[in-house]
């Protein structure tokens, strides 16, 4: 009994994996002492503002900057002509395309960057920006990706008009970017030809935007004396930025320092390199002073990495009993005017090929056509895990459609088709090897928790009542995620493999500093990475300082997005910790005058086997590392690990949504949302819960209201928070969370990563529930967003309204 208490005390002091350690980040944020990019002030700092095109498609005939330059307090007005001698008027994107930094002869999307005004402060810059006179010749715009592929469609990218091959293969039209295929087309087609049952459904995953509360920005400072460039930047991938800046500027990486300080939310919006960063750097180099650029909210919503815009057609072939035999998918992917999608190089549709989902589907074929339109660039963002949002949406919708066609309950069809636990590791027909999964108990746990049969009975009664004002819908989703990009043979960004890293140095007093190649934007890395080290190396988490984001000190990493921190950097953290532990064990053995094999690691100390009262704490070992090490051993206690993951990880979940729809107004109430997530080993349950709440809330926003509507002329309607639906505390439902634990067999601590799962999984669940509310009237699909107006239109089409 005494031992148990003592152990619990030691565990509590350690704050290792599995405990709800309170966050190390919080003290500065709750006291307003965070350091976000706009908080950075440097002596002599100037402020830059973009001048942007009001037109979606136009020639730039003339730019007159004279009045702006004459305005007191203005230091420079940059246009493409100023960047041409530096060959910086175009820059490479992460997708193998090029993007105009400042418009060169034409603009291709509304609000595209045309000029950059640098002034004493943001007030002067705002006044001067209005004085830049640009003469445009408007061109017809195309905003529909299908129309963009018409033979007579306006050519958007005249700069590559004659290029028949892009970064991803052949182009069949000036507005065509790539065609990407996966799977066996012929075999899949044959299965469809002979199937008992086939279903087909077209669905749009509309363009939405991550809208982190902090917009993008930077402070670029070129030190003329030292020849060093320092850039504070809102970046989820500071090392990648350093490499890109090095390539663009010909300054060696050793003289470039990129610092991602505190970031106010990333969600994939802060991965790419934006023109604002480039011109700030150029301006700083030219003027010899620091230059700050902070975009406005409407600039953020209308020009930075958007998400989705996938027009998908899914087909399933199945037996009459509902067993799925094949999946066939075609996607028209609207990438906007420049392909700036943040995808691993080889996969222009990201991990869309996870679209066979949680189901043992033996045959599949996927084809994705990327298309240019006169909209702003992006596509991969917003907690999507590289197009996994689209993939999961597709398969979960298709399974519902099939269930409906066959008259089978959507739960039953899932249970029938699940990949079974014994089948893992499971290789899908599209070439992905799922590491582990146990879908059935997860689904059953959720169904029991919500009393699914009772819900169906209640729904049946409601459907039988012709006077019921509120329809009831029940959504069920079983998603499998793919995160942790990724194995370098499959995943690279601009040729750099997607490994990640950790270095740990233990000080003589037993405290430690650890740095990783990732960068937190609210996920709590300063708290959770320390927990891993605490469990693996026995150093109390409170004695570990975690740093990320400064490329001059942090080991090279690919950054934080796609839920990759825990699976990749977390693995490096564990392995580096184990290297520390191993060296510590040998030092402990030396101190105990025993052989290393006779010494065991026990939470926070090394104990002599058979003599538990003889031990050395990690603290004692740390001191000894600097003055008393075994013969032949180097002093010091530190380790570095670069982890190239052998595979992705595959978290999964089962979600149920119960909602009610008012047939007269289209208003929706989310009555219940139950989310069970399995992310393998759980490092900090409190932080996991927070991530789930946040992801579910984003999912709710996407499903129920977010959109970026364009008119025919390419004007973006509603690029402010007046119209772009960000729910408040009033709209946001109450979330119920649950979990199972199915560790990843290939990950050093069995952890899979979790933060995007709730976003990925909740969106199809809301749609599933919404469609279910009308399913008894024959509705098989409804496109998002399910705002009251659109839902009302569905009600009216079914004769349910009063008008």
């Amino acid at each position, binding site marked *: 009994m005494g031992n148990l208490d003592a152990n619990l005390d030691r565990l509590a002091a350690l704050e290792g994996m599995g405990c709800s350690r309170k966050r190390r980040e919080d003290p500065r944020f709750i006291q307003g002492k965070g350091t976000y990019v706009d908080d950075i002030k440097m002596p002599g700092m100037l402020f830059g503002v973009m001048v942007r095109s009001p037109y979606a498609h136009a020639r730039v005939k003339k730019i007159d900057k004279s009045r702006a330059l004459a305005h007191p307090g203005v230091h420079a007005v940059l246009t493409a002509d100023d960047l041409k001698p530096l060959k910086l008027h175009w820059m490479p994107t992460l997708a193998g395309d090029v993007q105009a930094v400042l418009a060169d002869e034409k603009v291709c999307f509304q609000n595209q960057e045309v000029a950059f005004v640098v002034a004493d402060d*943001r*007030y002067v810059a*705002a*006044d001067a920006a*209005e004085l830049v006179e640009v003469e445009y010749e408007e061109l017809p715009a195309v905003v529909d990706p299908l129309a963009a592929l018409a033979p007579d469609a306006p050519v958007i990218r005249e700069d590559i008009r004659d290029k028949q091959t892009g970064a991803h293969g052949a182009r069949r039209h000036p507005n065509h970017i790539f065609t990407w295929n996966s799977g066996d087309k012929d075999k899949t087609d044959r299965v469809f030809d002979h199937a008992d049952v086939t279903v087909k459904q077209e669905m749009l995953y509309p363009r939405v935007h991550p809208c982190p509360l902090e917009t993008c920005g930077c402070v670029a400072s070129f030190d003329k004396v030292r020849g060093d460039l320092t850039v504070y930047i809102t970046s989820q991938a500071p090392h990648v930025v350093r490499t890109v800046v090095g390539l663009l500027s010909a300054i060696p990486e050793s003289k470039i320092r990129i610092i991602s300080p505190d970031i106010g939310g990333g969600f994939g919006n802060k991965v790419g390199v934006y023109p604002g960063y480039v011109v700030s750097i150029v301006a700083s180099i030219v003027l010899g002073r620091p230059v700050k650029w902070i975009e*406005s909210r409407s600039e953020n919503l209308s020009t930075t990495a958007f998400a989705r815009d996938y027009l998908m057609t899914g087909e399933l072939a199945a037996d009459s009993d509902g067993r799925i035999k094949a999946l066939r998918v075609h996607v028209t992917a609207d990438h906007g005017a420049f392909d700036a999608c943040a995808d691993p190089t080889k996969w222009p549709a990201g991990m869309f090929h996870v679209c066979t989902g949680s189901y043992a589907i033996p045959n599949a074929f996927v084809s994705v056509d990327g298309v240019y339109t006169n909209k702003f660039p992006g596509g991969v963002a917003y907690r999507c895990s590289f197009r996994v949002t689209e993939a999961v949406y597709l398969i979960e919708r298709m399974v519902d459609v099939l269930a409906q066609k066959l008259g089978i309950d959507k739960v039953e069809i899932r249970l029938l088709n699940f990949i079974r636990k014994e089948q893992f590791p499971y290789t899908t027909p599209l070439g992905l090897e799922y590491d582990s999964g146990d879908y059935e108990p997860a689904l059953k746990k959720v169904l029991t928790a919500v009393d699914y049969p009772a819900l169906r009975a209640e729904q049946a009664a409601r459907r039988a009542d012709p006077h019921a004002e509120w329809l009831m819908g029940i959504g069920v989703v079983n998603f499998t995620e793919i995160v942790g990009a990724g194995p370098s043979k499959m995943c690279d960004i601009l040729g750099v493999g997607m490994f990640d890293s950790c270095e740990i140095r233990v000080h003589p007093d037993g405290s430690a500093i650890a740095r990783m190649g990732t960068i937190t934007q609210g996920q709590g890395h300063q708290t959770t990475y320390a927990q891993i080290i605490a469990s693996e190396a026995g150093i109390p988490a409170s004695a570990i300082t975690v740093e990320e984001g400064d490329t001059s000190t942090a080991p090279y990493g690919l950054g934080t997005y796609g839920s990759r921190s825990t699976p990749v950097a977390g693995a490096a953290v564990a392995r580096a910790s184990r290297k520390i532990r191993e060296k510590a064990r040998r030092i402990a053995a030396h101190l105990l005058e025993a052989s290393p094999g006779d010494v065991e690691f026990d939470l926070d100390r090394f104990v002599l086997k058979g003599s538990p009262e003889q031990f050395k704490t990690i603290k004692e070992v740390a001191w000894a590392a600097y003055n008393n090490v075994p013969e032949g051993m180097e002093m010091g206690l530190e380790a570095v690990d670069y982890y190239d993951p052998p595979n992705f990880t595959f978290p999964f979940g089962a979600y149920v949504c119960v909602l009610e729809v008012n047939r*007269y*107004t289209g*208003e929706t109430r989310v009555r219940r949302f139950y989310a069970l997530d399995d992310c393998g080993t759980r490092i900090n349950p409190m932080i996991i819960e927070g991530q789930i709440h946040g992801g579910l809330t984003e999912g709710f926003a996407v499903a129920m*209201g977010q959109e970026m*509507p364009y008119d025919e002329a390419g004007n973006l*309607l*509603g690029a402010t928070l*007046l*119209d772009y*639906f960000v*729910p*408040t505390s*009033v*709209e946001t439902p109450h979330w119920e969370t649950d979990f199972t634990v199915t560790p990843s067999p290939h990950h050093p601590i069995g952890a899979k990563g979790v933060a995007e799962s709730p976003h990925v999984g909740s969106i199809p669940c809301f749609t599933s529930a919404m469609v279910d509310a009308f399913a008894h009237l024959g509705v098989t699909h409804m496109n998002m967003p399910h*705002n*009251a*107006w659109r839902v*009302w*239109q569905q009600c009216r089409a079914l004769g349910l*309204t*009063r*008008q």
Partner: protein
Amino acid sequence: MIPRPFEYHAPRSLPEAIALLNEHGEGAKLLAGGHSLLPMMKLRFAEPEHLIDLGKLIELKGIREVDGEIRIGAMTTENELIWSELLQTRCPLLVEGARQISDPQVRYRGTLGGDISHGDPGNDHPALMIVLDASFVLVGERGERVVPADGFFVGTYTTLLEPGEIMTEIRIPTPAAGTGYCYAKLKRKTGDFATAATAVTLRMSGATVSEVRIALTNVAETAIRATDAEQSLRGKPVDEASIAEAARLAMSVCAPVADLRGDLDYKTAMAGEMTRRALATAYARAAH
């Protein structure tokens, strides 16, 4: 994000404010709560050369009841309306309406007079004022006049407020005990303008309607009074049929602007639905 430069004035008395307004004419704008004007100035949609801040005019504050009339200073904030015990007991419609305007921070600053005189068809108080049979005290260089709410709203951003005039007070005949009321507002989310909204006051005489007023928000160039709908209810019981007819007549006077909240069909239909909700709730609250 940054307004154009302007000259700022903070008069300490109403005559001083009026004098400034007349001195600077068209180039001047009154600053009340600032939460309609300042956002427009930040986007440079409004560029006044002179801003006259009414914030120091304590004579424009206060909520009191005088001789069966509730008198509210034009610079009374939404938050002050919500927390007013006088209004909670004597004119709860105004409290219900104010609670549905914007968000808490905006309500600490946004004023009753500002909301009314801005002339934005999306603002909520005009419809409330119409059904409460309110009148507005307007003061200019030539003195004071009192104008009824019904008819005050002429067009989008256009009211009967003359250049050089400041709204100083809102007067509402204290609703008699047993008056039913409701403001039903459909919006995309908290803080949004109405997709459609209906304000109702209702009195019953026995089993039939003796008095009713119905006004609609954001489904026309201004807040509009649905007089035909009112007429259809007078002397009738409040039941499914009469509510349906009133809603139909309310919808028939709608001429909403299509936007991201909805097209003409949806907004008009929602005017109908909000009218139904408001009538049903007002009836439930009315003494009968």
